[in-house]
């Protein structure tokens, strides 16, 4: 059982998952607010740490659930006054606009599965824990999402 006592112990426990949490927040919150969302989520997780039960799932799934909640609250508060300026973006770093638009037309669950698996970088089993379903369901959802994207983008452009 993890010793759950001090902020430093919590920090050591959560640190291996920070990259994934930041990526998730980066997909669901404005870039300028990403770190704030993660910090809010970490405080919430710290406050709720004693309720985490490892028998019910991996830490990363529990933590992403908290980050997702903070992202929803952040969106509910409305847009802030921050304007992001992007200068000198290299062509290689330009997003795939057509793909981004097509992703917006997926169902919420398909979009969530794609985000978690491809962009956040989770394996299917962990995606299943985050989404609260079986790994087979995640595989099927990803399959449907790719089929839908194929329809939207066309095979020639895939």
């Amino acid at each position, binding site marked *: 059982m993890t010793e759950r006592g001090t902020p430093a112990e919590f920090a050591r426990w959560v640190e291996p998952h920070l990259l994934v949490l*930041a990526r998730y927040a980066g997909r669901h919150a404005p870039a300028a607010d990403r770190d704030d969302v*993660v910090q809010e989520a970490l405080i919430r997780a710290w406050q709720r740490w*004693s309720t985490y039960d490892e028998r019910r799932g991996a830490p990363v799934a529990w933590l992403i659930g908290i980050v997702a909640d903070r992202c929803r609250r952040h969106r509910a508060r409305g847009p802030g006054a921050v304007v992001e300026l992007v200068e000198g973006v290299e062509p290689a770093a330009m997003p795939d606009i057509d793909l981004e638009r097509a992703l917006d037309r997926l169902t919420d669950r398909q979009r969530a599965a794609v985000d978690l698996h491809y*962009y956040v970088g989770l394996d299917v089993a962990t995606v299943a824990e985050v989404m609260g379903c079986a790994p087979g369901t995640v595989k099927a959802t990803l399959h449907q999402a790719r089929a839908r994207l194929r329809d939207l983008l066309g095979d020639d452009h895939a």
Partner: protein
Amino acid sequence: MPDLIDERLARAARRWQETQPPPPVVLLDRLAEHRPHPGRRRRAGVIAAAAVLVVAAGAVAVGRLGSSGTSPSPTGPVTHRVGLEHPGTVPWADLPAGHPHVRTTLAPHGGATHGRVVTPFDGVSAVGAITGKAEPGDVLVFEAVLLSSTDLPLDPCPDYSIAFGRNSHRTWQLNCSAVPYRDARGRPYLPAATNVRFDMQVTVPDEPGRQKVLWTLDGPQQMPGFYGLVDVVRGS
């Protein structure tokens, strides 16, 4: 037969990941400000831990305490570390600024980039956390995390600056020789898409109040960097 959509998604995701700044660090002082909620099964243990936190918070209120590690001393300056120590972090060294010549103005026939000033470090981003409470003369230790989008030799070794409040500003050279990565020519370098952590330290100036501490990498026009706020309180 390869799934082209799968490959396109993976490629787009990888590109997006590479553009993301490094994740934030855990701010221990912000955690300490929030008492954990007692769990159903571990209520007694958590109450005990919370009691420890309350004592720690009291220490923050009456004394000097950094956000993570603090070396208290009743007689001399105190060292405050912000965040956790990470293995493999490049140690800080008091190296005088080298002021390397890194800026190049692109030639007139450069088309749209005509006249643009570029440096080898334009693709570097820097993040870090600076926070806490300290007395003048104390030493603040924190990490600067550098991330390059490409393999980047630290040759020449860049300078960085730390501005503390309105009147304190100093420039040092990065401790490049202690970077654990070497390229084929034996030069220290920042591997692409890899966080490289550098320990930083700065002496707190005698400028009471909430002060902005700004860390910047010298060279690039955009000056990659980060800042935080530190409460400077004179001792009684």
